[in-house]
């Protein structure tokens, strides 16, 4: 009773909506997906998989699995090379701009505001049109460069997807970096200037070290995000051409919704999802452990 009088019950009841919502929409699906990964179901009849791990072995034995893992790693790698430094460079440049800073911020953030489906369809039908009349191919034509296949060729499809994904997502990261840059004490730049540092030395010795904590977080967030890439391959290419853009999450989707067996192999889909989640969790744990010292001044 004392616990109740001290407000314990009230606290619990106030917490209850949160617990219920997280429980129903986050924690229960995680537990449920683990259970489903050990089952065969067509949503009418559900049986336990025999042996229990058969959905996992099914995934491992699927030749598309290795292709999807390789492609996902390729997408993540390309996105890291192209997509990770671009927002940082743009944010640093924008922070140096004295006039119309707001305008540049709006322009950088605009692609984030455009619904992803709209921007993908725009890029697909106009920019990446492989005919000579496509937007990019028209521009290349001005320089006497022949039309490029973009998403129509297994070699160029994935880099094309990364290019669009970087364009679409950079704005959000730029805003984060810009906010972090405002927290860098101006005295540090003044001191560097007194020591004779130019713009590059100021960026290297002042800006980047001051952004270290944010950079470490955006790095792992980018890896987690790109490892779960789905929208671009699904909307641009459906995993083609010749499985060049088949990714892990696209394979999860295909297991779940494009199987001959009543439309769904949910067991394999959840098994692969859990494998991806486990890999990312382990990767994140190692990353945070390895970089624990780096993020501290």
């Amino acid at each position, binding site marked *: 009773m004392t616990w*109740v*009088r*001290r*407000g314990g*019950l*009230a606290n619990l*009841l*106030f917490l*209850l*909506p949160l617990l*219920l*919502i997280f429980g*129903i929409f986050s924690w229960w699906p995680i537990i449920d997906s683990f259970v489903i990964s050990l089952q065969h179901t*067509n*949503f*009418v*009849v559900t049986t336990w998989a025999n042996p229990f791990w058969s959905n996992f072995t099914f995934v491992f*034995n*699927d*030749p598309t699995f290795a292709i999807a893992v390789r492609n996902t790693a390729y997408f993540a790698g390309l996105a890291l090379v192209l997509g990770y430094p671009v927002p940082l460079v743009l944010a640093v440049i924008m922070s140096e701009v004295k006039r119309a800073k707001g305008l540049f911020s709006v322009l950088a953030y605009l692609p984030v505001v455009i619904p992803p489906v709209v921007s993908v369809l725009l890029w697909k039908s106009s920019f990446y*049109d*492989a*005919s*000579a*009349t496509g937007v990019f191919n028209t521009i290349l034509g001005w320089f006497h460069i022949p*039309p490029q*296949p973009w*998403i*129509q*060729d*297994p070699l160029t499809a994935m880099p094309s997807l990364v290019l669009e994904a970087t364009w679409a997502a950079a704005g959000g990261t730029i805003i984060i970096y810009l906010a972090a840059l405002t927290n860098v004490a101006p005295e540090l730049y003044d001191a560097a200037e007194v020591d004779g540092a130019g713009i590059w030395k100021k960026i290297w010795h002042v800006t980047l070290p001051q952004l270290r904590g944010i950079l470490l977080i955006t790095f792992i967030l980018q890896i987690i995000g790109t490892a779960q890439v789905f929208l671009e391959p699904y909307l641009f*290419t*459906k995993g*083609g*051409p*010749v*499985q060049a853009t088949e990714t892990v999450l696209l394979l999860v989707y*295909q297991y*779940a*919704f*494009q*199987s*001959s*067996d*009543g*439309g*769904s192999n*949910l067991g394999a889909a959840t098994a692969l999802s859990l494998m991806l989640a486990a890999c990312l969790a382990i990767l994140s744990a190692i990353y945070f452990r390895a970089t624990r010292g780096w993020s501290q001044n």
Partner: protein
Amino acid sequence: MKSPRKAVWLAVAGVAAATVALSGCSGSSGGTGANGKTEIVVASLQPGASAASLAAFNTQVKTFEKQNPNITVKGEEYNWTGTTFAAELAGGTLPDEFGVPFTDSKTLANNGQLADLTQYITKFSYGSKFNKNVIDVAKDSKGHLYGIPFSPYAMAISYNRADFTKAGLDPNKPPTTWDEVETDAIAISKALPGVAGYMQMTSANTGGWELTSATYSRGGRMESTASNGKVTVNSDNDQTKAALAYLAKLRWTDNAAGSNFLLDWNGINAAFGSGKVAMYMSGSDVITSLVQNDKVDPTNYGVTVIPVDTTAANAGVLSGGTVAVANVKDTPAQQAAVAKWIDFYYGQPQVNQAAAVTQAKALQASNQIVGAPSLPIFDKATYDLSQSWIKPYATSGLLANVAPFTSNIFSENIVPEPNKHTQDLYAALDPVVQAVLTQKNPNVDALLKAVDVKIQALIDADPDQAAIK
């Protein structure tokens, strides 16, 4: 500061409000209405259908409700896809009546994912008249009936008549051999830069579907069944390789296949509607969707039979279609109502002159297609009779434009789709089709062998196949 007691009640109210809000979620199927009528949601329109087609459908609904005052029908835009079926079944948002393609109906029936309508269908006036090969797709392994087939189609070549004329070709004499398709495609692409003279679908399982059709037309098969029932996948055959080599030649040598090689069913229909593709392979009844969704002018549309190699004994035309079925989660009253609707909407127009004329008039009044080419679900005589009833209402100019198909299809060998893991097979073949269109020298042999290994493993794991020694 509020007292703990007040705070407790506030929290309880919050939880209750959240619970009430969550319990407001519900599915899209019908049930029993407040007026005691049985309500059913039927899927009889394609997503994106025009207001005119909706008007035609509503006219049909009014007629049905007049004949069945205890049933209320609500139409819903729905297009069966494997991608949404399982999720909608699980989520309880499937309509009460919907269509399932021939490739999947038997599997879903055997899985218990469709409602058993045997007791109703056997009582239909035409219940025993179905073509046995056609009605088989609506049965499970025990012979129970789960729906009735409608709109069976045969694979055909659709073409843009205006493009033929612009390229100096006669639109009334479409190609009859694969060589002629190639010659015409080259002529069109040369006369109309940027237009694909001929193209096939390549993604979302349609690449495999069309490659299978091209294989059939050359006398090959993707799957074979031994006398003991054992199914063997054989996509690595000469006819499939010939079909792939043909596509590669159109793309790399003739430059007559355009520049977009990632086309699914909707994508190629849109490309045809917007004039980017002049000739393509599709089901013979695609004109209905082309008019409803892609603004194709029926007078500018032509269709002919897919070329068949007359020198190959097994050569034939792939056919498919849709089975009208009921939601397995419906109540018995709803299933009975759905059976009545299926009879009214899909069955009677095939056998009853008044029903056929009523439906044709409703479609004609809303500028929808009447006379789209299809195949018989009963015998040829019944089909011809039903066609003669609706002939006066046929879309202007359409019957003449589809004549190259309708006058030749009945002399062809009609072949059903592969029956084991069909969608998996088609999905595995998509990348092979894409390979010949996007790579100059892909290793087709290795790609097809890999398809055979992958699909054979799935088939061998099926309980009925595993039981065969």
